[in-house]
């Protein structure tokens, strides 16, 4: 695992998230579930908690965007770059952007939204890319059935090195 340069981390354990918009390619309930499950990947192994807010500013703002979306990192259309996220911090810090031109799904077709968001949330929490091919924080996409997903040890070691182990 690799920490993001400068070791940024959230000073609070109780974080908030907000879903700014939805992809028309999935049912809203499936998007909500994919994001909730992706957040629990990290909250299950750390003291972090995530509370959903509907209209105020949240620590982690999640949105689907097209090409140039005014953050100096334009998306590139189908395939290629699927999503990106920002390290912990105020404002755009922690936010997750997903390329709306990808085929987002809740199964093995196209790109599984849960898998991609779980990876991006690793960046939102302070992890960089791992060169362990089995790690969730490995940069290239690979599908795992969400119902069988277990956070790999490399990622557990990395996030617990930042926030400690879960209180549960």
């Amino acid at each position, binding site marked *: 695992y690799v920490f*993001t340069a400068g070791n940024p981390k959230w000073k609070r354990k109780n974080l908030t998230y907000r879903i700014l918009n939805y992809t028309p390619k999935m049912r809203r309930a499936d998007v909500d579930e994919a994001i909730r499950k992706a957040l629990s990947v990290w909250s299950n192994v750390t003291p972090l908690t995530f509370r959903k807010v509907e209209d105020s500013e949240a620590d982690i703002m999640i949105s689907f965007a097209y090409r140039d979306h005014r953050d100096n990192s334009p*998306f590139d259309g189908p395939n290629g*770059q699927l999503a990106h996220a920002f390290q912990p911090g105020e404002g755009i810090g922690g936010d997750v952007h997903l*390329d709306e031109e990808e085929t987002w799904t809740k199964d093995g077709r196209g790109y599984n939204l849960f898998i991609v968001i779980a990876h991006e949330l690793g960046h939102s929490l302070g992890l*960089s*890319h791992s060169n362990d091919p089995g790690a969730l924080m490995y*940069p*290239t996409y690979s599908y795992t059935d969400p119902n069988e997903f277990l956070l790999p040890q490399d990622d557990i070691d990395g996030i617990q090195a930042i926030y400690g182990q879960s209180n549960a």
Partner: protein
Amino acid sequence: SPVAPEAEDEGKTLQFVENYLQNFYNLQRKHHPHLKHNGENPLAAKVKEMQEFFGLHVTGKPDLDTLEIMKKPRCGVPDVGQ
């Protein structure tokens, strides 16, 4: 005269490799391939860095294995710090 198809493909591949290394390995956009940095072509140095990260055979050349990884769908966050 029209460009030979092979040369055109090579140009496109080089452009693709440069874009990838600018996006994910901090290759400076204004680099000049014929200028050597410490005796090494900056692009070759970045290709080596990417090959090391992905555990590929480190050649400094965008060989088939390297191109295959570069073409995989992936996260847009750079692999190395900016």
